[in-house]
């Protein structure tokens, strides 16, 4: 099980969450002061990430077969970059990070280590 409290320690973390294959939110933590975020927003965000991971998987499949350039498939994570915050997912786990403070590489490493429930 992903340790959401530990993910919330990532630089700039505003929320950490897990979701199922359909994109339904399972567990979540929201950092103090993360205005505008609630379970409804996170649930929609999870659906968005699952949908785009599926699209990216199709693209990676097509791209690799067509170009022979392997290394995209299977898609490990999808990230959405918003105006001030980003949402990164890996497997069934994700975080919302403030763009100005985010360390995306560290976040992906942390998610990869904890991402699969």
């Amino acid at each position: 099980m992903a340790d959401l409290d530990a993910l919330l320690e990532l630089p700039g973390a505003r929320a950490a969450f897990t979701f199922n294959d359909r994109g339904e939110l399972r567990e979540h933590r929201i950092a103090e002061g993360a205005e505008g975020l609630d379970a409804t927003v996170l649930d929609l965000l999870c659906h968005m990430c699952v949908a785009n991971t599926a699209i990216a998987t199709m693209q990676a499949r097509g791209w690799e077969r067509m170009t022979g350039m392997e290394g995209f498939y299977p898609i490990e994570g999808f990230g959405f970059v918003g105006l001030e915050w980003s949402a990164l997912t890996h497997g069934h786990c994700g975080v919302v990070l403030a763009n100005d403070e985010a360390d995306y590489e560290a976040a992906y490493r942390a998610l990869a280590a904890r991402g699969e429930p």
Partner: protein
Amino acid sequence: MIRRLLALDGVLAVCRFRDDGAFVEGLGLLDEEGLRRLARFAHDYKRMVQGNADQLSMFTGMPGWTPPGGWMVRGRASSVCSVANLVCIVDNGEANLKEVMDALAEAAHW
């Protein structure tokens, strides 16, 4: 003219939008804001489907996918259907999708 589409069995709402996404007209069981949202969604969804059709065409090498003729999203009780710059919401239990899609295609040329 979109009133004729609303007269089809099971059609709950219908909208027309411009190529730039602007709302032109709408009728049915949604308020004005709902109709505008439907038009906006249909415009954005149309562009997304165009992008996906481009990719399908590119990856499969098959002709005939682009430009896409329209799209349908089927939910448990309702569906959303669109052809060109027209979109409608239909009741799955009442509507005949073939009839609706044909009518949308015809109305797109009005």
